[in-house]
């Protein structure tokens, strides 16, 4: 499999997980009536450890937590806005709160982060998840930008304790990393482009946009931040210190607890000498139709808008 291959995060993750299930009989996979080509393998090879709970995200998390209390390592899979928001209180009580007292190994896999279900409208867009899942104590939050990172998260979540949420993009995207070993999950981010003056800190799909922008504006640095919690904030501060402008880029609501809040905390607590700006959706739902680029364009998030932001700041 060449690194440049285009692949969905969910298929890379589920394929790797299926491989691990053969040797590790503690793994369960629970879905809320959501499929994937790679999932057919788990369904046929491990029917005793694959459960479709039906369209019932609250029960998905409750059943998963019961299995986890019996010592199983449970992966739960549903559409991102439903697994995070329909079942938020189940995740809060039975994963976040409970895991502070007892081991609860449940990983929530949310498919269709951001506006990757482009024309499906506000119910299927997921612009709140990174902020609200970050808010929960004891919950890890990951937002991979490519399928290599997604695949690496299988062994990472197997080797770490406690509940986690992973946002998968709904679309197949090209790889950004040559192999899983180049993804530094304990640190939480990778600097993909070195630069001067301006640094883009992006997560998920927006890392592809940041890389395209950096090609157009040599000297602009790019950091792909895939672990929003935990994140090695000391290392991130060190990485950001050379820049006098930091622009966070996320497919989510800004100024309300997502990636930009994490970046702001690091800048504030480490007294970094830089100005920060946020690229993302600004406190309004998206009913517009068209391509993903189109939706980004009318929200100041497409390539041209980010380049214009960089140039405008330069001229001040």
């Amino acid at each position, binding site marked *: 499999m060449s690194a440049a291959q285009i692949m969905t995060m969910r298929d890379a993750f589920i394929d790797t997980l299926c491989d691990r299930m053969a040797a590790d009989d503690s793994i369960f996979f629970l879905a809320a009536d959501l499929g994937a080509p790679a999932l057919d393998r788990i369904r046929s090879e491990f029917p*005793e*450890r694959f*459960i479709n*709970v*039906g369209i*019932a995200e*609250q*029960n998905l*998390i*409750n*059943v*998963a*937590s*019961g*299995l*986890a*209390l*019996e*010592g*199983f390592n449970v992966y739960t899979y549903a559409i991102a806005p439903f697994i995070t928001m329909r079942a938020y*209180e*189940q995740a809060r*009580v*039975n994963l976040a*709160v*409970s895991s502070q*007292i*007892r081991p609860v190994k449940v990983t929530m896999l949310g498919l269709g982060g951001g506006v990757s279900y482009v024309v499906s409208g506000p119910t299927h867009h997921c612009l709140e998840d990174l902020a609200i899942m970050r808010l929960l104590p004891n919950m890890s939050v990951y937002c991979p930008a490519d399928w290599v990172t997604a695949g690496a998260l299988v062994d990472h979540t197997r080797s770490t304790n406690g509940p986690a949420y992973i946002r998968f993009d709904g679309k197949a995207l090209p790889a950004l990393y040559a192999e899983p070993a180049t993804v530094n999950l304990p640190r939480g981010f990778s600097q993909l482009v070195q630069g001067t003056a301006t640094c883009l800190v992006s997560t998920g799909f927006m890392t592809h946009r940041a890389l395209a922008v950096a090609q157009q504006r040599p000297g602009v640095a790019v950091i792909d931040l895939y672990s929003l919690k935990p994140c090695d904030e000391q290392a991130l501060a060190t990485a950001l210190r050379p820049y006098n402008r930091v622009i966070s880029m996320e497919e989510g609501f800004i100024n309300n607890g997502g990636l930009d809040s994490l970046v702001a905390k690091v800048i504030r607590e480490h007294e970094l000498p830089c100005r920060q700006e946020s690229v993302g959706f600004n406190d309004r739902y998206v009913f517009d139709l068209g391509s993903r680029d189109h939706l980004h364009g009318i929200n100041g998030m497409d390539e041209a808008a980010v380049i214009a932001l960089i140039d405008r700041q330069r001229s001040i």
Partner: protein
Amino acid sequence: MIRELSELTAKARWVWSETLRMHRLAPETRVASSLSAVEIFTALYYGGVLGHNGADPRWEGRDRLIVSKGHGSICLFPILADRGYFAMAELDRICQPGSFLGGIPDTIIPGYETINGSLGHGIGVGCGMALGLKRKGAARHVFVVAGDGEFCEGSMWEGIMFAAQHRLDNLTLIIDNNRLCMLDRCEKIMTVEPFEQRFQAFGWQTERVDGHDMAAVHGALSRLKLRGATGCPAVLIADTVKGRGVPELESDTLCHIRTLTPDEIDRATGGVR
């Protein structure tokens, strides 16, 4: 394990009076919904129904008990202390700094499996445990104690469907059917009865008892636990009285949030202690 009915009944009376004593120490506790469940918990812990080990609360061979109606289980505190989960002296520190006995019990208390207090979670979590035990080949039983008001929560019915679908005959749900929510009688707020027809339509075995008849509660729980490979989950509807044994509570539809005065507690317990 207590084999004599008279001893079980006496133990239930002790649990009842200890519950009131703790309410006196911590008036913020929910006493009315704890008094309706006294015989249920007494049968489970003293009648040889629930396999457990107070010296090793997470003993792998234990049966699992999930107290979905968390608030209404203050009566379980004296039982757990008496059964060796923690020192009896802990009861005197209820709701005090450094104590683990809070107004709504959580898994920080030895003997409690889950985080409680948010209603509607217990049955789904119990389904996961029951399924996990089956997959492990462990012949252990899962009991879930829920209040009737909880059945307004949609997540209960998601779990009820799941349990039947997966033939969880190692799962028994106990409804403390005291017929009162916080503000009024259930049927005036949201009708949850008739439980038999509803549960049978969902593929469950049902049984109903007087929840304060010690022999009936104990007999039904023992039968249901030992029902064998029936292929279906079971529910015991225990008809109870909220605030049982305290006239000021029994006659008050708002008793859920009522705090008893020391005088009221003295009058209720006078002559029985």
